[in-house]
């Protein structure tokens, strides 16, 4: 089969070029998201099909359609009177001379000349653009209808905060798991994962209910599982490394601010927290809860100018927190220190929430730990800048339900908003996972380096994900037509151009083997054993 599709007939840099299909090529064989190359006179253009339409040379054809049951007439008209039109968004140019071969593909600054020939991109072209798998690049999937590997430059990826989006059930979790494996192997960063649904540490389940291995099973020496719910972990037979307990005295007013919405606190109640903290010091939470309903209390509140109803509102909220089983008056160990110990040794930490999938617990713990870890990182980083000490290992913090932390109301106050904005200055970046990207603050969205998005069909979500991307309207049609499984659109910092991928397979013994082949010998042996067990 020849790969010639047609010729460029019109277009602009902003809107993309229109390609008239040859008569021998059927529009039905085309697909949005596929790659084409355009042979310009001096350079080659690499682009993506973003829309497909039908054209006629004479409008009368559409008014009085010819008898297409006659194969002769339809054959004559194909490609002449009636033809397919591809809308192609040129994205990169590949120069013909030696200098540009060394530089690699460059972003487009012009369009190909009239009647340039358009071909389907070959495997080689795609490889040239996305690069092959190597010690920096991690194979994440293949382009549609192609076997070439699309690889992400992971050390580059983790330099910025990134986002994974998609409706529920579109494969966000699988994609995240895969990306985490990639980071574990190929980037110099360590991960801290707030695992709300216990899917990343030991084992997860696929949509069909099949159990799939997660990080710790594949890379036992590189991953530690922390848990908030020891009992649940034990029941699931997860080997945990540490049980996280949080003491009352570790909760700071700043940790409460984020919970305002979930705990239904009023604005004055949040103000009151600060006053109580000033009054009672570190033990404020315990003391506030234990204030008796006496006259002295009334006096105290008056002194602090806290209204009675405000105080009741606050108490209800604090009681909710106290009921969380992992909150104890005195924590036996310091979880922040433990997490940092592991991270310093280059071991990735997955924090399982067990049964406490309640959003209050998730926000409280994620925020609390992250704030302290970030503070530690900042201190160390500043020290490293001042003295000649090694910088701390880059850290990637993974959070789910990100719109709860990063919505416009709280993004400016939470630590996650700060991390997303100040980016890699302190070697800490985020991997946000969310199904309602429209709920995330626009400023934070604009700071995300690379966005990976599975199918989204809400107009507002699509708009917010694609905000600020060149060729937005074209990508929009690609995004809303992704299949609901195993397909994702990647764009941003880590890829030279937006790309639709069919994600790499995850869940079969072969796939485990391919994942760990870049890892240690130990895990490779484990995978071999698994395959033997499976096939007897």
């Amino acid at each position, binding site marked *: 089969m020849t790969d010639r599709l047609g010729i460029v007939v019109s277009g602009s840099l902003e809107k993309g070029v229109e390609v008239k299909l040859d008569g021998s090529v059927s529009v039905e064989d085309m697909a949005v998201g596929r790659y084409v190359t355009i042979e310009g006179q001096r350079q080659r253009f690499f682009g993506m099909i973003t829309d497909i339409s039908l054209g006629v*040379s*004479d409008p009368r054809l559409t008014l*009085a359609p010819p008898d297409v049951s006659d194969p*002769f007439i339809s*054959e*004559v008209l194909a*490609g*002449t*009177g009636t033809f397919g039109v591809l809308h192609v968004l040129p994205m990169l140019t590949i120069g013909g001379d030696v200098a540009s071969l060394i530089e690699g593909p460059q972003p487009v600054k012009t369009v190909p000349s009239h009647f340039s020939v358009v071909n389907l991109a070959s495997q080689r072209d795609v490889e040239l653009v996305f690069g092959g798998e190597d010690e920096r690049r991690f194979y994440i999937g293949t382009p549609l209808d192609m076997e070439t590997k699309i690889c992400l430059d992971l050390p580059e990826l983790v330099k910025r905060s990134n986002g994974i989006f998609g409706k529920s059930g579109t494969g966000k979790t699988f994609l995240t798991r895969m990306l985490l494996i990639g980071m574990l192997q190929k980037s110099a960063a360590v991960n801290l994962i707030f695992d709300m649904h216990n899917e990343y540490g030991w084992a997860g389940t696929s949509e069909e209910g099949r159990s799939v291995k997660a990080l710790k099973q594949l890379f036992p020496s590189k991953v530690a599982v922390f848990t908030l719910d020891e009992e649940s972990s034990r029941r699931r037979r997860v080997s945990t490394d540490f049980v996280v307990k949080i003491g009352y005295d570790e909760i700071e007013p700043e940790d409460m601010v984020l919970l305002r919405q979930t705990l239904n606190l009023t604005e004055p109640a949040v103000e009151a927290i600060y006053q109580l903290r000033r009054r009672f010091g570190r033990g404020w939470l315990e003391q506030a809860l234990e204030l008796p309903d006496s006259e002295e209390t009334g006096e105290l509140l008056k002194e602090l100018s806290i209204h009675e109803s405000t105080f009741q509102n606050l108490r209800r909220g604090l009681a909710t927190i106290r009921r969380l089983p992992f909150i104890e008056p005195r924590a036996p160990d310091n979880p922040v220190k433990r997490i940092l110990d592991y991270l310093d040794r280059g071991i990735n930490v997955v924090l399982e929430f067990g049964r406490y999938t309640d959003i209050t617990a998730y926000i409280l713990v994620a925020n609390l730990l992250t704030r302290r870890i970030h503070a530690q990182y900042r201190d160390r980083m500043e020290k490293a800048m001042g003295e000649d000490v090694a910088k701390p290992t880059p850290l990637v913090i993974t959070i789910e339900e990100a719109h709860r932390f990063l919505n416009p109301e709280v993004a400016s106050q939470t630590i996650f908003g700060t991390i997303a904005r100040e980016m890699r200055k302190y070697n800490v970046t985020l991997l946000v996972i969310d199904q309602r990207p429209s709920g995330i603050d626009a400023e934070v969205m604009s700071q995300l380096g690379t966005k990976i998005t599975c199918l989204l069909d809400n107009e507002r979500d699509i708009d917010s994900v694609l905000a600020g991307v060149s060729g937005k309207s074209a990508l929009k049609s690609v995004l809303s037509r992704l299949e609901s499984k195993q397909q994702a659109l990647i764009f941003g910092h880590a890829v030279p151009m937006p790309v639709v991928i069919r994600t790499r397979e995850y869940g079969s013994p072969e796939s485990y083997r391919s994942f760990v082949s870049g890892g240690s010998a130990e895990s490779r042996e484990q995978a071999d054993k698994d395959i033997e067990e499976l096939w007897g």
Partner: protein
Amino acid sequence: MTELKDRVGEVIEASTTDFVAQAYELYQLPPLGSLVKTRDEPVELYGIVYHATTGSLEPGRRPIARGRDEVAEEEIYRSSPQLLKLLKSEFSALVVGHREGDKLYHYLPPKPARIHGFVYQCRPEEVREFSQSFDFLNILVNTRLPVSMEEVVAAVLRQMSQAHEDPHAFLVAAGKELAILLSGQFSQLKAILGRL
């Protein structure tokens, strides 16, 4: 190369764009749409038969009905043999190209045909060679003819397709060319395609 039996007539009227020839035998006309040629050394002119007439030798004298007492049509001619000499068949051909030396050109020759030039019907291999290019369709489509253009074009393509090994492929290719030439006149295109 050209044999006597391919000779169909003689030029009796010529202009830059077309020529009229008289057939040697009454009714022995080349079919509508067939490719004919005449020579004006060193140039060979190609024409497409677009019109033909049979009538009286003298313009003022019209034939009269004669068959009242005859049993068969043939009997009329047998009983009045002079008729064959008093009637004549003529055909008109549109000049669509010429050959000079070995080269074929699908556009008008520098000079019109010569009067009394012999007119030959082209052989299949010549038709094949000439129809390698569809440039002649442009002349046909853009000339005002006494016969409707759709009829002539359809007849030409039908005739030419017979000379090709794969008539269907030839017609499809020609149809595509026409679809481009007549891109704004779909009704005409439809009429031609319907006649193929």
